[in-house]
């Protein structure tokens, strides 16, 4: 149970100014994963824009043009993996901050 004395109902909510340790930890992870997500989701199309030759002429797995493979297969897969990583991290945060998922009535 970290920071038991934080009164969460008195701290401002602003995504760029996290006011509690819980929000700070959560937001740090969110922005790291968000950055990776941008890289995987928009990386292939940006690379195709700047290096169309290299992206289409390079063939992987027996014939996939690289741009096609990265966009159709890797981008959705990366979003899935990152989602799993975040969900696990939140479970970890919940343990650190002692969040219980029982209904409030059972708590008391």
């Amino acid at each position: 149970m970290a920071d038991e004395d934080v009164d969460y109902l008195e701290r401002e909510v602003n995504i760029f100014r996290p006011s509690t340790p819980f929000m700070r930890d959560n937001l740090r992870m969110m922005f790291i994963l968000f950055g990776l997500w941008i890289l995987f989701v928009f990386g292939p199309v940006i690379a195709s824009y700047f290096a169309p030759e290299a992206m289409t002429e390079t063939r992987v797995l027996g014939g996939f043009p690289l741009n096609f493979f990265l966009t159709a297969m890797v981008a959705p897969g990366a979003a899935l993996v990152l989602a799993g990583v975040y969900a696990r991290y939140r479970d970890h945060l919940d343990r650190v901050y002692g969040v219980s998922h029982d209904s409030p009535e059972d708590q008391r």
Partner: protein
Amino acid sequence: MIESIPMVLAYQTALDPGFKWFPALTVILMMVIFLGVGWFFRVAEVDDLWVAGRSIGPLENGMAIGANWMSAASYLGVAALIATLGYYGLAYVVGWTAGYFILLIFMASQFRRFGKYTAPDFIGDRFYSSKARGLAAATTLIIAFVYAIGQGSGMGLMAQYILGISYEAGVILFMGVTIGYVALSGMLGATKNMTVQYVILILAFMVGLYAVGWTQGWSTFFPYLEIGPQMAELIDEVDRHFAEPFANGSFYLWCALAVSLILGTCGLPHVLVRFYTVDNERTARWSTVWGLLFICLLYWGTAAYAVFGGLLYTNPVQDTDTAVTLGEAATFMSMPGADADALVALTAQLADLPDWLVGIVASGAVAAALATTAGLFISASSAAAHDIYTNLYKADATQREQLNVGRGTILAIGIVVTIVALNPPALIGELVAMSFAIAACVFFPVFFLGLWWENATREGALAGMITGMVISVGAILNTTLPRYIDALDGHALWPGLAQVLPPTSSALIGVPLVFAVIIVVSRFTDDPPQEVKRIVRQCHSPQPEVRAEPTEES
């Protein structure tokens, strides 16, 4: 679609016409299962109609997310768009999968924490305004309407193959069944049903893909990754535009479309409602992850279908004429819209698979369309009954009255959708993308700022939602209206605007503008009341919920 009208006279579709017993029985059996499951878990209380008593686990809810999400647009539309637009079509694959990550990290837990039934409920409470709630309800109805048109279109195309009836008769028949089904069962039935529907639709989709791969000797165990040689053949020998990055849409259009679909994912009311059907935030998060996995299973296959379909459309195994073999289209990439939207089933048929197998693939499309339309109609009926009728018009409405208003809405919206779907203004995937653009421009900014900035005010939200509505609906009318009233040869009212703000992709420009409007107006208006700020803080607190008021009693 419009350009293909003269061609339709000469060439109808490569889909095999005529009534087929086994496929027809498959669809009937499917409907009986759905209605049976719906009846078994039928609605008793008005609360159950909307949130299913919050007793669903992550795996089950993940499947429901998948079924709710994957409509005819995913099942039929995405493969069609990849086949006809090549790399540009992949913006749909990315846009309709990757958005779940954003939904998960920024919104799922907080939304569940907020503890409101529906999108309009959330907006009404967060922005302490029944006007905002009414506006959100109206937007929900518009989104459900645009989204469902594409579903009607997909059902009509599949009915052509399965029942051998005309497209129009198919639309009317299947929409009728959908309306009856939703009005009878409600959401408790629907959640159980969605699990069943997901299993049916993913199996049907996979069976077709594996069977085509096996019979043509193209793939064995893992078609997603084995289609490299076929793809190389398609690009090098049939049409090299297939993989050329910006042959069918510029870099800007690609990004604008992907961003619109991603943000639309985070603003769709019928998607968000799935977070209220679970016990707690942890279940909400993990069901998003499971849901995304179940969605990816289908989306990874769409490219394989486009490749198989492209090759078979060029050289059918079965003795069928396609637009390419008849010389009506230069390559598969210029096939008529009706063939493109039926390509998933058509691929199985052109590979000369037996009728019953093609029938299963076609039935899967019907299941996909039905599951999503059910979810949409439930969102629409709750918006009308809960947020418009009870909230704005008659505060003391009884449960019976609310149920009746909800059912009346389903019937009314179903009829209008059927009429428009008889002559759809665009491809299935494009129609659905338009409703995503509306969701992204109107809902995403107020959801996001509502949860992440406690000082967003009522006035800011109203101004932002109206701006978003003008931008997204304006972009749609700009291109579709001339086609409907038959003016300007079907060109956009303002062609320059259509280049910058395409109807499917208005959010890349629209969303930042709406954010700016909300932030500026909020700065110049009085801060939200202290209770509202406390509710927002509650959403970001790791401590157990302290409910000021229990969820609305109606």
